[in-house]
């Protein structure tokens, strides 16, 4: 998971619901606050230092070096303006990878959300064995992406993988690591598998927070279970679903790095990869620091846009939740 993936879809509802005296405009977080000149700095300084050194410094450097062409042997760099960007965006390889990344994101997000929702709806319904199902469905959350990559690789292995035999039954010769489409299929499968539990957890908790009274009112108003789901449950789940949408896109963009790295094993020649993986390859294997930085900045913009959307959603939950 990315770090942001751990964000809850909304802040403490208690804070919102609690009746309060009307605040003056630009109300502080608390009615009463400490008024000391030095103390808050002592508390906030460690975090500020870490953020400054390990976030802002490298981020600024990324933007900066995206305008330079660095000598591969480390003998200085020359300013090239937006050449690195132009080169990246006009390169055919980059476009292919961008297209794959988009498709990969869409597939992984769609499937992981769909399956997660389906399982959550069912798990919310059953009473017998509910906690056993829950445990089984949650477990995989804890497993690291590289480990899922390794397990996935074994399952798609040309010698020992059961999926190879399964595909053979349908007359398909599955050649993961060699055939582009087969590798893509394997990557999507593993990435979805890893992400289902996360979506399941959030959908289930969203479903279970639907008040009993609303469920009962729905039972009186609609006979068909499907209609109840579509007209009542789904709209109530919408905030959770939007939140998860952003999280899943972020996940498939970034957190799948380890899965790809393990499964294509430094043999990216004819294999699919995502944009993040290309940043890494160009930077660390290809020593093209300028080009890699330019790609980083492009990705930064995409992620920043996504995150802003996510924040707006959270904010909306604050106000209307």
């Amino acid at each position: 998971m990315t770090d942001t993936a751990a964000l809850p879809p909304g802040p403490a509802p208690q804070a919102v619901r609690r009746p309060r005296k009307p605040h003056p405009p630009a109300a502080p977080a608390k009615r009463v606050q400490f008024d000391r000149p030095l103390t808050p700095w002592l508390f906030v300084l460690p975090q500020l230092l870490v953020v400054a050194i390990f976030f802002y410094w490298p981020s600024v450097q990324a933007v900066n070096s995206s305008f330079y062409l660095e000598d591969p042997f480390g003998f200085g760099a020359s300013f090239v303006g937006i050449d690195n960007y132009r080169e990246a965006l006009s390169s055919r390889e980059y476009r292919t990878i961008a297209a794959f990344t988009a498709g990969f994101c869409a597939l992984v997000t769609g499937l992981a959300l769909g399956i997660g929702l389906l399982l959550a709806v069912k798990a919310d319904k059953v009473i017998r064995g509910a906690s056993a199902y829950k445990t089984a469905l949650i477990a995989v959350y804890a497993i690291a992406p590289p480990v899922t990559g390794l397990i996935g690789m074994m399952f798609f292995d040309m010698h020992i993988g059961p999926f190879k035999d399964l595909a053979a039954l349908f007359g398909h010769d599955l050649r993961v690591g060699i055939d582009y489409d087969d590798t893509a299929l394997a990557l999507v499968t593993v990435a979805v598998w890893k992400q289902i539990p996360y979506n399941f957890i959030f959908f289930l908790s969203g479903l279970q927070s639907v008040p009993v009274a609303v469920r009962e009112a729905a039972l009186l108003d609609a006979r068909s279970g499907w209609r109840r789901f579509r007209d009542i449950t789904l709209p109530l789940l919408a905030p959770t679903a939007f939140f998860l949408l952003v999280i899943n896109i972020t996940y498939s963009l970034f957190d799948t790095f380890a899965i790809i790295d393990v499964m294509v094993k430094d043999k990216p020649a004819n294999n699919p990869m995502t944009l993040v993986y290309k940043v890494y390859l160009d930077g660390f294997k290809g020593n093209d620091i300028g080009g890699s930085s330019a790609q980083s900045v492009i990705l930064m913009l995409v992620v920043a846009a996504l995150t802003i959307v996510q924040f707006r959603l959270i904010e909306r939950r604050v106000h209307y939740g």
Partner: protein
Amino acid sequence: MQKIKPLDHLILILGAAILIVPVLMAFASSTHSAAEIHMNGLYLAPGSEGVATYHKVLTQRGGFTGEVTGARMLLNSLILGVGFAVGKIVLSMMAAYALVYFRFRLATPIFWAIFTTLLLPLEVRIMPSYQVMSQLHLLNTYTGLIVPLLASATGTFYFRQFFKSVPDELLEAARIDGAGPVRFFIDILVPLSRTMMAAIFIIMFVYGWNQYLWPMLMTTDEGFFTLMRGIKTILQVWVGSQIPDYNEAFALAVLAMLPPLLVVLVFQRMFIKGLTESDK
């Protein structure tokens, strides 16, 4: 009430199987010999080679320099997981405290400076981060492994939300009771946050333990390798060998997934609560 249809159970059983069976097979296969796996494929039932394989993985010195054992990598993963979780809780609780409970002029800019970090995951600034680390001579150190991962506001966000939900009157009562900022923090707020801290510890431990890209770049000295790094290594060694050490790879995978798995399952309730809400 709603009727329970067998179809619901079927879907759930199928879903659970798809998610769990590969994990079980990874474990079962790790207890068979590489040759067996090579001949018969993956196993669903445990074999008899388990003790030998795990003993070998944990104690045999491997890697290129022949210095790192599985046990060492396990320890390093533990250090990363625990160090990250503890560091995160300490830093973010303190920062959130300053932001919520103090009136000071730069609170808003500082808030934004910290929360902007939520915008960009480490992966997009990995290259310059590496350069910064090497300039600071932090490659191959635990500090370099852990501290840069702390440069993100997730924890601060959680604690800020939590602190905001703490009734105002508690601070007011404490002030009338003569508690200053430090005393209020230690006497009231920290004990009050215990559940929250536990939940965040679990989430962050899993996050730290599961780190892959950063440790891979930060550590060239095998003494600092984590299990995730070990997985990469064991797969690299395969190239050229006759029968790959499937069993050892699986054993390593099991070692790498067991601790976070146990933590999440044992503290399931708290973990889910921490993940899905900051409402206490």
